[in-house]
């Protein structure tokens, strides 16, 4: 059987599974040292985070620097949930989870209501009505104040109400449901829920800050998101004021080590599939069009602001998911891992691998991690030269292949699906009349 006749997704799946199983066997047979196991896990985790950044930067064209902040949000929030299950820091094994789900569901409900009543249009309609009575300036102020009041009321009543309800339900039902499962399973279930809740929280916070920020472009957006990164870092440093178990600048300890290769590889697969399916859909085309030409995308009837927010939030969710896996890999979280400088790491991976290439992003992440850690084989007196050697390599890549290793090329399943050309038979029978395209040469001079 020829390789050609096997669907590309089967080929990719087989390749992916073989790699996953080989690495798994290598892990469990002790072929790789504990250290190298962690390096590979970190590579895959950073790959997920870098995919999120590539969605923001490579596919949507948003030059956003605060990625590590969302990585940290996912890490801390999921760690709070799983740590609760072990140590009951909140007084209940699901206290953290209940709080987190309460906040998230309340927020989503409030936003859904505001979208349902189409608050933006209502504000504009109100402004127009008011303009007939008072000056445009006063109308703008009044309609804005009214909008804020309505938004605040919805957030308090709907958001608060639903959030409170969800929290009570989780608190009441959660422990008994989880107790019914065997201890090993319930632990994994809590981990899964924690990862998802962390990713959703990162996405929601991303959504919230993107509302004002995504009106900015280029350097302005970069500075603003940088500011958000600094704010988050300061928050993590002082988080013990709010939740004592986060321990602020001393670093959060006591997180269960739950991140294993199957978890990481499954998360990576999910991230790649979600990303690939998103990009090669109508939504993805709208996002790419927004990047290529904002004004033209607008005149195609695309609400570009909305798609920038969507892409940004999904990118943040990827960072949150990766952060959750990271927290349960090292079992220790310190704010210094989430400074804005750490936001540069995924940038390096994306640019090294190829801006706008998923394959390249994964390649970039693994290269980055293995290069940085692999150079530890250097003799002790040279080991600090790692940070000279890898930038030099990066420099050469940028000089000789500025589009990154993969450029915008993809491999296997991640490639753009081929679209069948129009059938010839269709053309022949009742073909649509064609526009004039061949001008007679004689007509060109008059």
């Amino acid at each position: 059987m020829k390789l050609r006749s096997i669907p590309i997704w089967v080929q990719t799946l087989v390749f992916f599974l073989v790699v996953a199983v080989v690495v798994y066997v290598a892990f469990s047979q002790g072929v790789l040292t504990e250290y190298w196991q962690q390096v590979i896990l970190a590579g895959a985790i950073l790959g997920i985070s870098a995919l999120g950044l590539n969605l923001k930067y490579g596919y949507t064209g948003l030059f956003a620097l605060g990625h590590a902040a969302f990585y940290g949000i996912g890490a801390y929030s999921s760690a709070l949930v799983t740590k609760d299950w072990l140590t009951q820091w909140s007084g209940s094994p699901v206290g953290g989870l209940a709080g987190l789900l309460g906040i998230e569901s309340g927020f989503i409900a409030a936003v859904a209501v505001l979208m349902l009543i189409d608050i933006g249009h209502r504000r504009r309609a109100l402004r127009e009505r008011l303009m007939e009575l008072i000056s445009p300036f006063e109308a703008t102020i009044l309609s804005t104040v009214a909008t804020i009041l309505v938004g605040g009321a919805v957030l308090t009543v709907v958001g608060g109400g639903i959030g409170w309800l969800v929290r009570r339900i989780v608190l009441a039902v959660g422990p008994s449901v989880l107790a019914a499962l065997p201890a090993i399973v319930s632990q994994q279930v809590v981990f899964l829920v924690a990862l998802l809740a962390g990713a959703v929280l990162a996405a929601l916070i991303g959504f919230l800050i993107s509302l004002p920020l995504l009106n900015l472009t280029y350097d302005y957006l970069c500075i603003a998101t940088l500011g958000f990164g600094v704010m988050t870092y300061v928050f993590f440093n002082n988080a013990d004021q709010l939740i004592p178990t986060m321990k602020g600048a001393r670093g959060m300890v006591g997180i269960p080590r739950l991140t294993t290769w199957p978890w990481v590889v499954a998360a990576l697969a999910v991230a790649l599939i979600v990303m690939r399916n998103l990009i090669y859909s109508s939504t993805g085309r709208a996002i790419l069009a927004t990047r290529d030409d904002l004004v033209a995308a607008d005149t195609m009837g695309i609400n570009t602001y909305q798609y920038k927010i969507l892409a940004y939030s999904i990118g943040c969710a990827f960072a949150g998911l990766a952060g959750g896996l990271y927290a349960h890999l090292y079992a220790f979280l310190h704010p210094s891992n989430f400074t804005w400088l750490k936001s540069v790491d995924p940038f390096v991976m994306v640019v090294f691998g190829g801006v706008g290439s998923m394959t390249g992003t994964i390649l970039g992440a693994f290269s980055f991690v293995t290069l940085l850690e692999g150079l530890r084989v250097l003799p002790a007196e040279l080991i600090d030269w790692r940070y000279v050697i890898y930038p030099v390599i990066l420099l050469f890549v940028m000089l000789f292949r500025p589009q990154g290793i993969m450029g915008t090329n993809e491999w296997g399943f991640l490639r753009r699906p081929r679209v069948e050309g129009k059938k010839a038979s269709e053309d022949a029978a009742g073909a649509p009349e064609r526009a004039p395209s061949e001008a007679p040469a004689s007509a060109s001079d008059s």
Partner: protein
Amino acid sequence: MPQSNGNSTVLKIDGLTKFFGGLRAVHDFDVVIKEGELVGLIGPNGAGKTTIFNMITGIYPVSSGKVDFKDRTITDLPAHEVTHLGIGRTFQNIRIFPNLTVLDNVRVAYHPHARYNVFDGILRSGRFGRGEKEMTERAQEFLSVFGLDEYQDSLAANLPYGEQRRMEIARALATEPDLLLLDEPAAGMNPGEIVELMDLIHFIRDRFDLTILLIEHQMRVVMGICEWITVIDFGEIIARGTPKEIQNDPKVIEAYLGSQATRG
């Protein structure tokens, strides 16, 4: 030339004015365009023609004045909503999506009418399959109407210039407009291509039942296909009439050739 039946007004602009800081780019512009008309808007460089387009399509906010499209005020509506109401446009410097394929460039225009949402896309549901198939077929039909089907899978950036112009027009028509604004479609074209373009404009007007407002510098295009013309200079209307009248209007000649020029 089939004159469209309707007398209903498609576009009505009244007292449209635009200030860029202290610069008055457009002053008190007005126009009424009826269904099926092919209208020209001409004027020397910097006269404010493109600014008018940008105000109609919601890209620039309006300083003062009113734009009505089919009995609906669209002043200051965001650009994507103006498109939804049925105004399509092209740009003076082509604005294609260079890193998308030609097919995807056209499929983008169908996105607002997509029959599936982002979750269908991620989960590849049945609705995704059906919606995508429908979109693709319609886009391919458009491409073959414009003779672009052979380029379907190539990146738009790699198309020859003339084909990029055609694709941009195809893409604007894919948004299903009633009014099409063409901003210097003949810019950078050779005489042969210009003849071709004039045929194309007539063709799309008849096939898609369009009303067309056209900005153009090439007098041959404007005089050849427009039913009537508005001339602006320094943001103000200086003349309006049929191509014949415009050609002999002293103010127009002065604006284009300078006051020293002698007629004849």
